[in-house]
């Protein structure tokens, strides 16, 4: 018997070996992604600090003269895969093609690199150590050294950010000293100040100790056997260390550093929910914590970080409700600067830059937060796939992913894309899911008036043909791109026939003239004086958007219905209606957002419907004119939607059968409107039948002027057909349509919309972010008091970086002690070649030793600045 068993076992082993031998081998002929590492020319006897930026290049071989409209791919299958490690293994096994998730696993990245997979890098989250402002002597009589600004500031020297990034994050990050994100435009705008501060606060534990010691002694503490004591007890700092991510190791590192200078640290490891009541809601004076490992996230490139100084340091922050922020003590100078920036109280960009400079210095002196790193995440994919991604939001964060995703060697085909989750919450454009896992497919099924540049955050026209922006004189607004115009005017009047408010009961807009008349008739409240009614309304900004003349002929919804002006007007109505009392779909949870919108909204007007031209008036002003373009393309907060699709939801909510928002659905105890699956579908179908029977036009008093009976019949008939074929009601107009939904299986299929009007490849120019590379060449030895010139080669993928795409090339000169002694602009010599000339005075200011020249390139086509450093010796 035993022999038989052994024989069987032997056969099984042999079979397993044969099977293993038959498995497909790795194709070693596949091109591995080229990795370009920024570097500088290294001369002998010179130590060079290298700033390394890895850029994975993509080989895109677009066949010439390919006639294809819409997306490059035929289908995209999206599924849920929660584990990064599994996702990587599945890409290697050809089970999935793309993992569109911001992954941070160092081990998984190592596998990706070993296996020659492609990956893209994004930045968006960032970490810091929040220091308690309580004390310095707390309610229980104990000491909180972080109550002293000088000690907080000293903590900057105690943290080796390079160590954290390299050793703890495995290189997945960028050292961070400031509240600005290192890859966003405001960092680039103020990069010289930033670099100055980063050099000033570089890792120097001895400096930290030298600042700390006199301050601690002044507080009455003494160091006994290397341990700080206060009133005979060790000074114990409680660290609330988050356990879910890399902040665990970072918190331990900071605790070690604090112990190394004599503090006793009580490490308390907690999850987000456990930590929140302690660091956020407890009174810092109670001393329940002394430092907390904070983490923040941004999912899109922020063009204007004007509020960070108020948000992170001031009691006037959005977090001002918390005991923590209420305990922040800031100087009058800081308050003034942060408020001016937050409220836009400056007239020129130069004035703004000066405010930023002051704020950055003061923020570091205050140091309620010790910034540690901007985290880098990666999204792995098959080497044959190429796709555009947003520098902050990744693949799923840009609408361009649907347009640009493709195989490098094939047109059409199917890509399987995984994310951590899928189909999380109901899909409806008004108040549905805003999970990134749901928004990602919606971004590919929807179309847009304008699309944010994935590398700069500026907007590009998609359906909009042109835009004209007018700003009141004296406001610091600039324009970068040529597709729109920017003008300034002493005053902007809102026309009398512009819509300025919404009458929800009668379902009509109120014009400016009507509003003024109403204001004139209003009786003042008792004891109050009558408000002076202006002759007309004014605004700080006017936007005029024009759509192509053939828009309504060429652009169709996925169910075949041509787009019409009613789709735009519906969007205008829904900006007000859900949050306005008297509405048939009034929703209390929407009041706040509608009130906020109305506080700066000044008016809008449909100037023409052939072509579609819309004017918009507002008091919200952005630094970039591109952001001031207000188009009413029917892409709502949570997805695109034609009027007839929304109509059946509105009808269902009017009858209290469904509700667009989760809050209202709970209050009414009905289902949350879901256009793609679940119990909502039967209710929507019944309401579609009812709409067809009753010839229902929502907001008929207003929308009725834009919808003919023929259009209404056609739209409802198309929607019914769509539902019969697709089994859902989610109709969009983008390059893909939602084909199949499998909610329990967490899978959905997007299929190419063949009638999409744009050619494939329209957005292919965003294939790779053009992050500049710099090489510096110059003498390794310089004689003080003599003029010297250095050359900087600025390139991208080996080719000279076009000077037209470069905003500025700066240089900073630091002496051997790290003090900034000179700064200036580099001169353009030739395409891709810049020179920096240090004057005799500048080199004369240098003492003998090793000095550092830093060159900073700020491109216009990508918001990431590039730095390179060159060290030379003075004699």
């Amino acid at each position, binding site marked *: 018997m035993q022999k038989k068993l052994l024989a069987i076992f032997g056969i099984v082993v042999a079979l397993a070996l044969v099977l293993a031998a038959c498995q497909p081998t790795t194709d070693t002929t596949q091109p591995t992604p080229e990795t370009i590492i920024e570097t500088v020319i290294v001369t002998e006897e010179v130590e060079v600090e290298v700033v390394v930026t890895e850029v994975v290049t993509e080989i895109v071989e677009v066949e010439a003269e390919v006639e294809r409209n819409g997306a490059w791919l035929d289908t995209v299958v999206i599924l849920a895969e929660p584990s990064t490690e599994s996702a990587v*293994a599945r890409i290697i096994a050809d089970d999935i093609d793309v993992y569109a998730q911001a992954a941070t696993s160092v081990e998984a990245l190592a596998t990706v690199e070993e296996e020659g997979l492609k990956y893209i890098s994004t930045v968006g989250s960032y970490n810091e150590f929040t220091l308690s402002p309580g004390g310095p002597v707390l309610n229980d009589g104990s000491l909180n050294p972080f109550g002293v600004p000088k000690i907080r500031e000293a903590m900057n020297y105690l943290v080796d950010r390079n160590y954290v990034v390299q050793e703890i994050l495995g290189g997945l990050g960028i050292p961070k000293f400031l509240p600005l994100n290192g890859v966003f435009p405001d960092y680039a705008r103020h990069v010289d100040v930033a670099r100055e501060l980063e050099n000033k606060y570089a890792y120097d534990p001895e400096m930290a100790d030298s600042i700390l010691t006199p301050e601690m002694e002044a507080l009455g503490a003494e160091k006994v056997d290397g341990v700080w004591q206060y009133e005979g007890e060790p000074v114990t700092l409680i660290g609330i260390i988050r356990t879910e991510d890399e902040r665990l190791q970072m918190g331990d590192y900071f605790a070690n550093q604090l112990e190394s200078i004599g503090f006793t640290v009580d490490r308390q490891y907690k999850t987000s929910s456990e930590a*929140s009541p302690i660091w956020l809601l407890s009174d810092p004076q109670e001393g329940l914590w002394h430092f907390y490992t904070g983490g923040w996230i941004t999912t899109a490139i922020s063009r204007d970080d004007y509020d960070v100084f108020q948000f992170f340091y001031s009691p006037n922050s959005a977090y001002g409700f*918390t005991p923590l922020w209420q305990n922040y003590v800031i100087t009058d100078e800081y308050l003034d600067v942060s408020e001016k920036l937050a409220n836009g109280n400056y007239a020129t960009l130069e004035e703004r830059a000066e405010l930023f400079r002051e704020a950055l210095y003061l923020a570091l002196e205050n140091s309620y937060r010790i910034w540690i790193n901007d985290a880098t995440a990666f999204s792995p994919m098959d080497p044959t796939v190429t796709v555009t991604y947003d520098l902050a939001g990744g693949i799923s964060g840009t609408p361009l992913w649907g347009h640009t995703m493709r195989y490098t060697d094939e047109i059409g085909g199917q890509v399987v894309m995984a994310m951590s989750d899928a189909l999380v919450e109901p899909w409806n454009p008004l108040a549905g899911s805003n999970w990134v896992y749901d928004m990602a497919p919606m971004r590919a099924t929807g179309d847009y008036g304008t699309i944010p540049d994935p590398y700069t955050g500026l907007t590009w026209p998609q359906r909009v043909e042109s835009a004209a922006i007018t700003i009141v004189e004296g406001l610091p607004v600039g324009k970068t791109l040529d597709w729109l115009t920017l003008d300034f005017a002493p005053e902007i009047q809102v026309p009398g026939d512009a819509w300025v408010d919404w009458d929800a009961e009668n379902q009509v807009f109120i014009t400016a003239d009507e509003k003024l008349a109403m204001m004139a008739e209003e009786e003042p409240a008792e004891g109050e004086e009558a408000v002076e009614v202006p002759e007309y309304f004014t605004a700080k900004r006017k936007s005029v958007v024009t759509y192509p003349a053939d828009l309504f002929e060429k652009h169709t919804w996925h169910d075949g219905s041509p787009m019409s002006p009613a789709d735009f007007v519906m969007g205008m109505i829904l900006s007000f209606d859900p949050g306005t009392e008297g509405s048939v779909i009034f929703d209390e949870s929407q009041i706040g957002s509608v009130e906020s919108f109305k*506080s700066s909204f000044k008016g809008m007007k449909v100037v023409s419907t052939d072509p579609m031209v819309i004017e918009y008036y507002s008091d919200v002003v952005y630094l970039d004119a591109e952001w001031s373009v207000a188009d009413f393309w029917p892409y709502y907060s949570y997805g695109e939607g034609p009027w007839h699709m929304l109509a059946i939801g509105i009808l269902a909510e009017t009858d209290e059968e469904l509700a667009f928002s989760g*809050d209202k659905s709970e209050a009414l105890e009905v289902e949350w409107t879901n256009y793609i*699956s679940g119990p*909502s579908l039967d209710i929507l179908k019944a309401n579609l039948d009812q709409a067809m029977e009753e010839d229902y036009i929502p907001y008929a008093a207003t929308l009725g002027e834009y919808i003919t009976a023929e259009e209404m019949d056609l739209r409802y008939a198309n929607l019914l057909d769509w539902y019969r074929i697709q089994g859902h009601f989610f109709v969009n107009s983008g390059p893909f349509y939602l084909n199949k939904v499998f909610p*329990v*299986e*967490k899978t959905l299929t997007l299929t190419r919309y063949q009638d999409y009007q744009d050619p494939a490849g329209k957005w292919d120019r965003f294939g790779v972010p053009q992050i500049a590379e710099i090489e510096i060449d110059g003498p390794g030895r310089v004689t003080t008091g003599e003029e010297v010139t250095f050359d900087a080669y600025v390139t991208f993928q080996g080719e000279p970086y076009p000077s037209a795409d470069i905003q500025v090339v700066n240089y900073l000169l630091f002496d051997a002690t790290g003090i900034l002694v000179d700064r200036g602009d580099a001169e353009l010599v030739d395409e891709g070649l810049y020179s920096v000339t240090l004057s005799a005075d500048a080199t004369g200011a240098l003492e003998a030793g090793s000095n550092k020249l830093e060159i900073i390139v700020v491109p216009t086509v990508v918001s990431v600045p590039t730095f390179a450093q060159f060290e030379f010796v003075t004699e």
Partner: protein
Amino acid sequence: MTTESKTIQTVAGAKRKAWVGTLSRVAKYTALRSVTMLITVVIGIYLTILIANMGGYVDEIMRGQIREQVAMTLRNQEEYKQLSQEAKDARFQREVMDEEQRLGLNQPFIVRSFRFLWDGLTLNLGTALRMTSDTGSRQVRLIILERLGPTLLLMGTSQLLLFFTSVYLALILSRKYGSFFDRAVITLSPTSSAPSWFYGIFLILIFAALLRILPFGGMIGAPPPENSWEYTLDVLKHIILPASALFVSLIFISIYNWRTFFLIFSSEDYVEMAKAKGLSDREIERRYVLRPTLPTIITSFALMLISLWTGAIVTETVFNWPGLGRTLFSAVGQYDTPVIVGLTIIYAYLLAITVFLLDFIYALVDPRVKVGGRQKKA
């Protein structure tokens, strides 16, 4: 009236009396058992509510989360940034208040805890606080029902296979005590100390990553086949690895347990007597081993059946299987008490009913057992 008829009457009377006595005993037992079961369920559920809410501390956690969430949401709204400080504060407070009200935080926890309890006991599962079902509904009923199918499929396949295989093999081994197979099972039984997900990872590595003959996880391929026959085959293909992981992780210890159990009965005198009488092995198994062990087998089978309800949290996660284990895990993580209570109350009711019915089943299969009967004191 003859003596015979009197005797018949007496016997009939005695029978009736015995029947009435039995009925009364059973009724009394049923009532008492129901009450104790109900009390047990109430205590169990209330303890679950208290533990899931950390005795009310979760309210503090949720308040912190709400404030963080509202602050971050508002910070990203351009219009909000344009408001005056007072307007910003008012907006913030309103949003916080609305959310607290929605989650019921405007009521003390103790009040809500009893409401949760009552809703649970009356099977009024209501709506979840944060979770939605896969099809987007907030009804706890749908959140559970949508995951029930996949859970029963995975757990049912693996546990039924495990149960019958282990009982069958254990019976065989109990007859071949000390044989090579018997010693092999004893040797391999410690392998069950490793959890099923541990085997799951190995199985994925071998059959999905290395050999590439089975899928990594999920319940269906992507995109799912449209033909129902192909769909079924695809589901079967996807179930092989997770079911195998659950099966492999417990099979040896399960065989070992049953085999030891059967061995005790196999060495009883009456079994030896049966062997001496020359009865066949099958006859001995059926009459003298299986029959007296039937109550234990049935108990084990019934408890196994209701355990299907709970799913397997980590194994489901490793295999990305959309089961109730992951739902419960997610509900605990999000402090979604209605979902936690919903899952627990159904399990509690199933357990109580099973335990209750088992008493009657014991009486049916084992003549030595009497429902409501008491052991006489010595």
